[in-house]
C-alpha cells in the first residue's frame, strides 16, 4: 500500500483539537473524535426495495439530475459514477459567500446578491480518470444507491473483468471515500485530481479565503494495492492497481457564533482536511466502509415503511424506468413510492447532521450560482425541509435547524432593532415600536437577511421549532428555543394594531404585510399572519407554562391571542379569505398555501367538528381552487392539507404528481429522484423541499397527531390499502408509533412514549385513550370491532 499524502506531524491534530474544544459555537468542520469502529461488518445490501438502481451514469452537464448524492450531514457530494471519469461535486454546508448584509436598499428591503447576501457554493471538484474505462467501451453498467447503508455504487464489465466502485461520505471519519475494486484480474490505471471551484488550481490540498474572510480548504489522498500510487505534480497517478481507495475531505472555518463573527480564526481548513484524510487513510476501505455503514444505519434504521408489494415487472425496471412506468401505466408502485420516502430520509441523514441545516438544495449543487442562492427561505422552504424529520424517525436531523435559528438569533434581533423601523420599509410597524426579532424571506448563515422583510417569518420558524418539541418532548430543546418564541411574541406585541370590524368588534390585526409572494403588499390582517401568530401565541403560552418562566408576559400574550382577528369565509368566493377582503386579490392557483397554514402545518382548522363547519368548508374550497397541478413543494403542501382533510384520493394524487418524470426540465422527479421545478420553459432546477415534503405527506396520510390525539390511517389511499406498515413514525404528544394495516384497516398499533403519557388513539370514528410511561409502550389491536 502506498499513500500519496506526506505525513503531517501528529501534534497538528492535537493542537487543532485543543483549539476547537469549546462547547458552544463549535465549528462545523472540526477535529473528529476517534471513530467508533464496529465489530460486525457484514450487512446485506443490493436487493432490498431500498436499493435504487440505474443503468446510466451522470454527465458533466447533468449532475443535478443524474448525480447521486452522498453526505455525512456536513460534507456532501454529487457523484457521476462515469466509469472512465468519476466526478464528485463536493460542498460543505458552510461554503457561503456574503455576510451580515446589514444595509437596506432604497426600498427599505435587503440586498439579495451573491456578494452582499451571499450564496452557498461548491467547495471542490474531484475527478478520478480511468482512460481505459471509457463509457463507450464498458458493458452491463449498473449503478446503485443503497439507502439502508448510505452507499452509492457502480459496476460494469470491461474486457471480461467486473469493476466495482463505492462512494460514501462518512460521518465518523469526516471524509468522502471512493473505493474501486474488481474481480477477474483487472487493474486500475489513471489519475485523481482535486480542484477548487473558485479559481484554485489542482492540488493535493488547497486552502483559500473568500472576500468575506471565510477560509476553506480540502485535501485528497489515495492508496491502493498491487500497483503504484504516486504524486505527479498536482495530481495523484495510479497504475496497475488491483484496488484503489481515494479519500477526500474539506470544510471551512465557519463557526456558528455571531459573537465571533461566524469564524474560527484559529482553524486552518486546509491543514485540518489534510489531517483528516491522512487519518482515514490509515484504514482499509473495508474498515472505513463498515464504520460508515454502522454509523449511517444507526441514524437511518429508525424507521421502516411498507406501502404494499410491487409486481415482478415493476421490480425488474431500473429506478428511472420505474418512475416513467408509474406515470405511463397509472399503476401504483408501492415499493417505489415507499423508496421515494426513504430517499427523502436518506437526504435528511446525509444533509443535516452536526452542521448548518439544509437550504433550497441541501448539500447538492452543480455550480457556484444556485438559484436563490441555495439559501434558507423562511416562507415555506426551510420549514418543509424539516416537516419530515420527526415524522419519519429522524428527530436528530432536526437539530441542525434548531441550532441554526438559535445561533442566528442575536444577529436577527440586532437587525430587527436597527432596521425594521426604517422609514422606507413599507412593512414597518405603524405603532412606531419594535421589539424582539424577525427575519426576511431569505436568511444566510452569517446572521444576515436577504430580499424583503418577512414579519411573520419569526412566527413560522418558532412554530416549527415548537412542533419538534411536541414530537420529542425534549426539555433541552425547549430551553434552547424558548428565547426565539419569546422574542417573536415581543415582536408581535409591538406590531399588532387594533381595528374595528363592521360589527363593531375590536380586534388585533397584523400590520402592513404581504401574503407570501402574492397579492397586495400592504394588507392588514392577512390570514397568513393572523393564523401563524395565533399559533405562535398558543405555543408560547405552553412553553412558558412548561418551563415555568415569564408567566406575566405569557398572560399578556394569551390576552392578545384572544383578541386576534381570525379569518372569515368570503361570501363571494366561498373560500377562506387570504386577505381581510372578500375579493380574490391574487392568483387563484398560486403555489403558496399561506392562508391554509393552520390546516397544515398548524391544526386550528380541523375536520373533526371542533372547527366551525363554514371555516372547514371555506378552507376546503380554497384548497380546491388552488388546484392539483402545481409543482414540487406546492404539491407536497397541497397533499398534506388534503391528508388533514382526510381526502386520501387527492392527497395520493399529489404524491403521484410529484413522482412524474421530469423531462427537459419539466416539474417532477428527476432521474436521481431529486425534485425539479421548471422555472422557465425547458429549464428545471433542483429544489429539495419536495423531497422532504412529499414523504411528510405520505406519513401524514398514515398517521395524524397532535398533542393528546393520534389518528391512524386518516387518509389511506386505495393504492396502499391492501397491506402495509410504518415503523418509527413520530407523533406529536411525545410518541413514536409502529402501525400495521391490512385491507385498509389497522391491525396493530404500538404506541411508544418518548415523553408523552396519555393520548387518545382514533380510527374510523372510534377512539381509545391510552396511558403509557415515558420509555414504555402499549400495543393496540382489533380496531375493526
Amino acid at each position: 500500500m502506498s499513500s500519496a499524502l506526506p505525513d503531517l506531524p501528529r501534534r497538528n491534530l492535537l493542537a487543532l483539537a485543543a483549539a476547537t474544544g469549546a462547547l458552544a459555537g463549535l465549528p462545523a468542520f472540526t477535529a473528529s473524535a476517534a471513530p467508533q469502529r464496529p465489530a460486525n461488518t457484514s450487512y446485506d445490501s443490493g436487493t432490498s426495495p431500498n436499493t435504487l438502481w440505474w443503468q446510466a451514469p451522470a454527465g458533466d452537464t447533468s449532475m443535478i439530475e443524474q448525480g447521486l448524492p452522498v453526505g455525512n450531514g456536513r460534507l456532501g457530494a454529487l457523484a457521476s459514477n462515469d466509469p472512465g471519469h468519476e466526478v464528485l461535486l463536493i460542498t460543505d454546508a458552510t461554503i457561503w459567500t456574503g455576510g451580515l448584509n446589514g444595509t437596506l436598499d432604497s426600498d427599505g428591503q435587503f440586498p439579495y446578491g451573491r456578494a452582499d447576501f451571499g450564496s452557498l457554493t461548491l467547495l471542490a471538484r474531484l475527478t478520478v480518470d480511468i482512460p481505459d474505462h471509457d463509457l463507450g467501451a464498458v458493458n452491463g453498467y449498473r449503478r446503485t444507491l443503497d439507502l439502508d447503508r448510505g452507499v452509492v455504487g457502480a459496476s460494469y464489465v470491461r474486457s471480461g473483468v467486473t469493476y466495482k466502485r463505492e462512494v460514501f461520505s462518512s460521518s465518523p471519519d469526516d471524509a468522502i471515500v471512493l473505493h474501486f475494486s474488481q474481480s477477474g484480474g483487472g487493474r486500475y490505471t489513471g489519475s485523481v485530481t482535486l480542484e477548487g471551484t473558485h479559481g484554485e488550481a489542482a492540488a493535493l490540498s488547497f486552502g483559500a479565503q473568500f472576500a468575506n474572510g471565510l477560509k476553506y480548504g480540502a485535501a485528497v489522498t489515495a492508496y491502493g494495492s498491487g500497483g503504484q500510487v504516486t504524486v505527479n505534480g498536482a495530481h495523484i497517478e495510479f497504475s496497475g492497481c488491483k484496488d484503489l481507495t481515494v479519500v477526500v475531505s474539506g470544510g471551512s472555518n465557519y463557526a456558528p457564533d455571531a459573537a465571533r463573527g461566524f469564524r474560527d480564526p484559529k482553524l486552518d481548513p486546509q491543514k485540518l482536511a489534510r489531517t483528516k484524510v491522512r487519518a482515514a487513510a490509515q484504514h482499509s476501505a473495508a474498515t472505513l466502509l463498515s464504520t460508515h455503514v454502522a454509523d449511517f444505519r444507526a441514524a437511518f434504521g429508525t424507521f421502516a415503511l411498507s406501502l404494499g408489494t410491487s409486481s415482478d415487472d415493476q421490480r425488474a425496471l431500473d429506478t428511472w424506468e420505474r418512475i416513467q412506468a408509474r406515470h405511463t401505466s397509472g399503476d401504483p408502485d408501492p415499493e417505489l413510492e415507499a423508496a421515494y420516502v426513504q430517499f427523502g430520509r436518506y437526504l435528511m441523514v446525509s444533509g443535516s447532521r452536526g452542521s448548518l441545516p439544509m437550504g433550497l438544495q441541501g448539500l447538492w449543487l452543480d455550480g457556484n450560482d444556485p438559484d436563490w442562492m441555495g439559501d434558507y427561505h423562511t416562507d415555506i422552504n426551510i420549514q418543509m425541509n424539516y416537516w419530515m424529520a420527526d415524522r419519519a424517525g429522524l428527530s436528530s436531523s432536526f437539530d441542525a435547524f434548531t441550532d441554526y435559528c438559535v445561533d442566528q438569533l442575536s444577529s436577527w434581533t440586532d437587525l430587527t432593532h436597527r432596521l425594521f423601523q426604517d422609514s422606507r420599509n413599507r412593512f414597518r410597524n405603524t405603532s412606531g415600536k419594535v421589539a424582539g426579532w424577525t427575519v426576511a424571506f431569505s436568511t444566510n448563515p452569517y446572521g444576515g437577511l436577504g430580499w424583503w422583510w418577512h414579519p411573520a417569518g419569526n412566527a413560522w420558524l418558532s412554530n416549527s421549532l415548537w412542533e419538534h418539541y411536541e414530537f420529542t418532548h425534549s426539555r433541552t430543546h425547549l430551553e434552547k428555543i424558548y428565547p426565539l418564541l419569546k422574542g417573536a411574541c415581543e415582536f408581535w406585541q409591538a406590531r399588532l394594531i387594533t381595528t374595528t370590524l363592521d360589527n363593531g368588534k375590536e380586534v388585533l390585526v397584523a400590520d402592513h404585510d404581504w401574503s407570501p409572494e402574492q397579492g397586495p403588499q400592504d394588507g392588514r390582517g392577512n390570514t397568513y399572519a393572523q393564523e401563524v401568530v395565533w399559533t405562535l401565541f398558543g405555543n408560547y403560552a405552553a412553553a412558558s407554562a412548561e418551563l415555568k418562566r415569564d408567566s406575566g408576559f405569557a398572560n399578556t400574550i394569551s390576552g392578545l391571542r384572544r383578541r386576534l382577528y381570525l379569518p372569515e369565509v368570503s361570501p363571494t368566493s366561498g373560500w377562506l379569505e387570504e386577505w381581510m377582503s372578500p375579493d380574490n386579490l391574487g392568483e387563484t392557483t398560486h403555489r403558496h398555501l399561506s392562508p391554509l397554514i393552520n390546516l397544515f402545518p398548524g391544526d386550528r382548522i380541523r375536520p373533526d367538528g371542533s372547527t366551525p363547519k363554514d371555516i372547514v368548508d371555506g378552507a376546503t374550497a380554497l384548497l380546491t381552487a388552488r388546484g392539483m397541478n402545481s409543482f414540487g413543494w406546492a404539491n407536497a403542501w397541497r397533499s398534506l392539507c388534503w391528508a388533514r382533510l382526510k381526502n386520501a384520493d387527492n392527497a395520493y394524487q399529489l404524491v403521484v404528481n410529484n413522482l412524474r418524470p421530469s423531462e427537459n426540465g419539466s416539474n417532477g422527479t428527476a432521474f436521481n429522484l431529486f425534485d425539479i421545478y421548471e422555472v422557465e420553459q425547458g429549464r428545471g432546477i433542483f429544489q429539495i423541499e419536495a423531497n422532504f415534503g412529499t414523504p411528510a405527506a405520505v406519513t401524514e396520510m398514515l398517521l395524524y397527531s397532535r398533542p393528546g390525539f393520534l389518528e391512524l390511517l386518516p387518509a389511506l389511499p386505495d393504492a396502499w390499502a391492501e397491506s402495509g406498515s410504518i415503523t418509527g413514525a413520530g407523533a406529536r404528544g411525545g410518541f413514536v408509533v409502529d402501525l400495521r394495516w391490512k385491507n385498509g384497516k389497522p391491525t396493530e398499533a404500538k404506541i411508544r412514549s418518548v415523553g408523552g403519557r396519555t393520548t387518545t388513539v382514533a380510527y374510523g370514528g372510534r377512539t381509545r385513550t391510552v396511558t403509557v410511561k415515558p420509555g414504555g409502550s402499549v400495543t393496540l389491536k382489533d380496531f375493526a370491532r
Partner: protein
Amino acid sequence: MYSLTPVRALRAMVVLALTAGFATYLPAAEAATPTADTATAVAAKPYMGWSSWSMQSSKYPGLNPDGDYSYLTEANVTKQTDALASKLKKYGYDHINIDAGWWRDNSWTPEYDQYGRQAADPKRFPSGMKAVADRIHSKGLKAGIYLPAGLEKEAYNSGKTPIWNAEGCTTADVVHSDLRTTNGWDSSYKLDFSRPCTQKYIDSQAQLIADWGYDYLKLDGVGPGSGKSGDQYDNVADVAAWNKAITAIGRPIHLELSWSLDYGHAADWKKYSNGWRIDTDVECYCNTLVTWENSVDDRWDDTPAWTSLAGPGGWNDLDSLDVGNGAMDGLTKAERQSYATLWAVAKSPLFTGDDLTKLDDYGVSLLTNREVIAVDQSDAPPARPVTPSDAQQVWAAKNPNGTYTVALFNLSDAPAAVSANWTTLGFTGKAAVRDLWNHEDLGTYTNKVTQALPAHGSRLFTVTPRGSAVTLTGYEAEAATNTLSGNANIADCSACSGGKKVGNLYVGGKLTVNNVVAAKAGTYQVKIAYVSGDSRSVSVSSNGNGATSHKFPSTGDWGTVGTVSVPVTLKAGANTITFDSGSGYAPDIDRIDVPNSSS
C-alpha cells in the same frame, strides 16, 4: 485514362486486402472491368476516401495560412494522398477528392481554358490537374474532382468563348438568352439543354476530367436542393447531361451530387448519379472542422426518409466523416463514435475530411475498425430507425444472413441507458450480441439489450436472433370502433394498409384506438405505421394515463408509409391507445401492430 492506373498497384492492393483477412472487401470499381454496366459497378458499395473541403473551410489554426479557403494546394493534396495510401488504403479508403476551388486562386478568381472549362489555378496546382491525378493513381488510389452546376458566370466571356469539339457553338449558345442564374450560390448561368450546343459543353467538361484521369466528380450546388427550388434552380437536366457524357466517354466516373438534394426528385438523382448529399454541409465553418450541433446531429433527423433509396449504384451521402482528430474535429470521443456509427449503418460514403497526417489514436481506431467498415460496405440494406427520433433511438437493418445490425444512439446532452428491444426488430426471446466497436461478444440477452451511453454516444452491435419471430395483432387507425376528436379525420392513402389513414391530427386532434387487447400486463413495443412529410411529434398514452411525446421521422412525403415502434404500457385485457397532437402537428396514422408479448 483508366488504363493509367498501374496494374501492379492494383494487384498489390487486392492482395493486401485479402491478407488482412478482409475478404469481403473488394474495391468495386477496381474489380470491375470498364464495361457497359459501369454505372452500377462504379458505386456498388459506398465509396471511401478523403475530401479536401473540411480543412479548407475551417478556421482551425494553421490550416488556411494564406487566407480563407487557401488550404487546397497540390502540396497538401500530395501529403494527404501519401497519408491515405499508407494509413487507410488497406481498410478500403481509396478516393482522394479535390473539392471546390482548384481553379480559383486565394482571392477566388478563376482560371478557364480557351473553351470556358475550369483550369487549374497555377498557384494551387502548379503541375496541373492531370499530374495530381497521376500522383494519386500512382499510390493505387482514385482521383476525385469537383465542379459547380451550370456555366460559371466568369466563364461566359460575353458569350464569345467557343465550346470544345462543337463547331459553331460558343458560351452564348449554351445558356438561356436572359442569362438566368442557377445553382446554390447563383454563381452560374443556367444551361439551356433545349439548345444543341449545351450537351456539348458538358461533354467537353467530362472529356477534360476524363483525360486528366479523374474517377469521381462532385457536382455541387445542384437543385432542386442546395437551398433552392423552382424551375430556375432545377438542374435535373444538368445531371442527366453529365450522366450521358460520362456514359459516352466510357470511363467509369462516379457522379456525386451536392447539396441538400430535394427528396421530391430522388428518382432523378438515383437514375442519373451515384450518390446525393441529403443534407447541408457537415462543416461548421468555424474554428474546428465540424461541431456536433452544426451540423453533425442534423443527420439523425434528415437521413431516415432517404433510407430506402440507397443501394448499389447510388447512396445517401451524409457528407465528410470528420472523426480522425478530436481537437481538430471539435467533437468528443462519444460524438465521433456516433458520427462514424450513423455513417456506417446508413451506408453513407465514408470519406474523411481530416488531416490524415495528424490522426489521433482514437481517430485511427474509428476509421480503421474493420467490423464497422464492413457494416458500411456489406450487401445488407442501410439501417433505419426502429424507434422514434427521440433523444434515445435505435436504428437497425436486417442482414442477408439473418442477423441484425443494431445501433443505439443517445442524442441527449446527458448520459442515458438505451435499450434495443428484440420485438422492434421482429423477433422475441434470446439473441447473441456482438459489440463491433469493441470487438467483443457480449453474450446472450433476453428480450433486449440495454447499455449506458454517454451524452451524444452510441453502441453498434450485430444481433443474432436465437428466438422466434414476433407475431403482431394489427389495428387500423381508420377502424370504425376508434375514437377521433378535434379535426382528426379519415383520409384516403393508397400506400396505407386498408387504403386509409387518420390525418388532420393537429392542435388538439386526437386518435384513440380502442379495444387493444393484451394477454398480460406489461410494456409493449407497439409498431406504428404512419405517414409524415416532415418530422412530427405526437403524444402517445394508454388508458388515459401519462403520455410520452415521440418525434416520428419524416417519411419523405405524404404518400409514403414508415414504421417505428413505441413503448406502450398495456394492462391485461382491453386497452385504449391515444395519439394526441397536443398543441402541435402530428403525423398521420395508418395502423398499429401490437406484439403478442411485452418486453
